[in-house]
């Protein structure tokens, strides 16, 4: 059977499962729509969180980015897992005890202020929209390559599926679909990795294969060979990297703190019954995420070595089938600069003849390694599961921000539960359409902004929430000033150094690198903005009135785990 046939079958089966679950778990009340009724088991919530968290970026792009960045790619590995330690220790149990539906709910109540709530809603929408557009693009990419439909049709199919279970089922539908999606995506990621690891090193466990000797009898360690190949071609040694230490530090911190501050991840912890369960499900989530995150760097090493071996100094005419297939999508391009018919792949831009998009490393990897057709198709189904599960989680945050935080809490407090449920469904529908539009017509900056979404979350939510829990005297003036200053500085830095807005546009960005504050890139600047947020909050607090006794009592109460009760919207 052909790859395409297998892809139709596997994608067809998985999509029917998602739709089946959606119908089975329709939401009947706002509580079911926002927090799945609050009775999800820790393991199920851990699986759902893992799927929610691991997006098209984790599944499709990350291993590819690391394959090209080597050690520098570690920022994503540590940043996107270490954040869960912060989440589990500093946020999840307390927010669960607090027992509301959304992150702006916490900010609004803890800081007894509509302004604070509105600032939080804006931040949540900004972060979630930039993020969701990237997911839709991922869906389009997978469809266009594997099912050979065009990108637009691919995105529309994806939109319909997400619309179906997110709008119908809300958090309840999303949770149980995500459980299924986790299984699909982890299976799809692991199978090719195990195959390739065994092929290259004789060790079926990728995490160990990465550090083993090659299978060719040479006795050379895989990483040693890759370091050698990289330097030979003029790249940095794979295990050293080229970013400055301070920048690696700052990016890792921004990603960790940003992860802990992402609203679509935080809300997952509102769905369990007790504080104890919130802690435990954070542990499950990270364990399940770690399976993919410790495999990804191994996949990077395999893919990079395989790719160099396959293409470098080989005749273009003898390239395997996958090469021309990816050429059609424009993600690989070859230009025979010296006219010798061979592919020269080197670091020097003037001599290099091959351009490879990083995103295809995971998708093309099974083909490069000559794996059976069903494995290749499985990767397509996995990529779709990863993109759809994250998109659904984000759409829920967007719809609840609108229906709960804006309509219910600000504009129309007397709306009935059923009315709010319909507003939520309407908002989700509109959000899907907007996200789909950006997926089909990606503004050039989507990919860049997705990385910066973490900086924005780090600069705004994280300090406000942590101070809200650990600093009883923190008041609304301090928290609002901190959030506003933090996110404004982050946006300013992004516009200046990522988009060159004040210096004549994108072309100026390269030249501005030497002006980076403290040598920190825009991706890492979220950590500086976060520190400033903390400082501003604390200074302003000292000069403004204490929070009311009632609020201080709330803080004392959320520190005690017992009596969490059920999440409520009132």
């Amino acid at each position, binding site marked *: 059977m052909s790859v395409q046939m297998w892809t139709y079958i596997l994608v067809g089966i998985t999509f029917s499962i998602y739709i089946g679950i959606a119908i089975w778990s329709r939401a009947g009340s706002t509580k079911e729509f926002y927090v799945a009724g609050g009775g999800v088991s820790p393991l199920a919530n851990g699986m759902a969180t893992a799927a929610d968290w691991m997006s098209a970026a984790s599944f499709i792009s990350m291993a590819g980015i690391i394959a090209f960045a080597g050690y520098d790619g570690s920022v994503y590995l540590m940043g996107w*897992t270490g954040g869960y330690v912060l989440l589990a220790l500093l946020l999840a149990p307390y927010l669960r005890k607090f027992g509301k539906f959304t992150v702006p709910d916490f900010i609004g109540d803890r800081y007894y202020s509509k302004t604070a709530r509105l600032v939080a809603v804006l931040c949540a929408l900004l972060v979630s929209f930039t993020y969701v557009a990237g997911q839709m693009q991922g869906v389009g990419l997978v469809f266009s390559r594997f099912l050979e439909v065009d990108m637009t049709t691919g995105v529309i199919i994806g939109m319909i599926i997400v619309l179906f279970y997110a709008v119908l089922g809300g958090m309840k539908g999303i949770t149980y679909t995500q459980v299924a999606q986790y299984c699909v995506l982890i299976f799809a990621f692991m199978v090719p990795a195990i195959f390739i690891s065994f092929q290259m090193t004789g060790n079926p466990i990728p995490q160990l294969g990465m550090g083993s000797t090659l299978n060719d009898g040479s006795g050379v360690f895989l990483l*040693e060979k890759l370091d050698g190949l990289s330097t030979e071609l003029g790249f940095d040694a794979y*295990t050293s990297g080229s970013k400055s230490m301070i920048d690696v*530090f700052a990016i890792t911190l921004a990603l960790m703190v940003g992860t802990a501050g992402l609203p679509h991840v935080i809300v997952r912890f509102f769905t369990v019954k007790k504080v*104890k369960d919130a802690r435990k499900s954070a*542990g499950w989530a990270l364990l399940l995420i770690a399976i993919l995150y*410790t495999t990804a760097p191994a996949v990077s090493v395999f893919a990079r070595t395989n790719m160099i071996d396959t293409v470098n100094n080989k005749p273009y005419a003898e390239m395997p089938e996958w090469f021309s297939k990816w050429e059609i999508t424009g993600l690989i391009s070859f230009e025979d600069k010296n006219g010798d018919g061979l592919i020269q792949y080197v670091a020097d831009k003037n001599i290099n003849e091959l351009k490879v998009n990083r995103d295809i490393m995971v998708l093309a990897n099974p083909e490069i390694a000559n794996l059976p057709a069903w494995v290749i198709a499985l990767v397509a189904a996995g990529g779709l599961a990863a993109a759809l599960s994250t998109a659904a989680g984000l759409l829920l945050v967007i719809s609840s921000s609108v229906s709960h935080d804006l309509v219910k809490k600000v504009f129309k407090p007397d709306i009935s539960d059923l009315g709010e449920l319909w507003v939520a469904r309407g908002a989700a529908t509109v959000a899907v359409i907007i996200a789909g539009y950006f997926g089909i017509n990606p503004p050039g900056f989507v990919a860049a902004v997705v990385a910066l979404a973490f900086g924005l979350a780090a600069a705004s939510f994280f300090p406000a929430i942590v101070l809200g829990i650990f600093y009883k005297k923190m008041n609304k003036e301090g928290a609002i000033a901190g959030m506003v200053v933090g996110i404004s500085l982050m946006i300013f830095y992004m516009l200046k150094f990522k988009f060159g807005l004040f210096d004549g546009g994108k072309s100026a960005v390269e030249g501005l690198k030497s002006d980076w504050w403290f040598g920190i890139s825009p991706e890492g600047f979220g950590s500086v903005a976060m520190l400033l947020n903390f400082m501003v909050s604390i200074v302003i607090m000292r000069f403004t009135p204490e929070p009311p006794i009632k609020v201080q009592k709330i803080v004392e109460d959320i520190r005690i785990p*017992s009596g969490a009760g059920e999440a409520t919207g009132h």
Partner: protein
Amino acid sequence: MSDKQKKASAYWKENLRYLFILLTIWFAVSYGAGILFKEALDTIQVGGFKLGFWFAQQGSIYVFVILIFVYVRLMNKLDKKYGYDE
């Protein structure tokens, strides 16, 4: 301060102590071993891995997972000790 409040603040203090210890380890394996002291650790080779590189791409993640489960255990015990478990 009432007994109830005393109990609550004692519980909170112990909780903060756990957080401090666990987050120190969290910092040490990622920012310490994986970034700040990466070069030095790279001189040690374990199998095919340079140690600093291993911490950055593998080791720190394993430790993160262990940290959360240790935290869950410690807190469950602490909850019991203070009668906050349910």
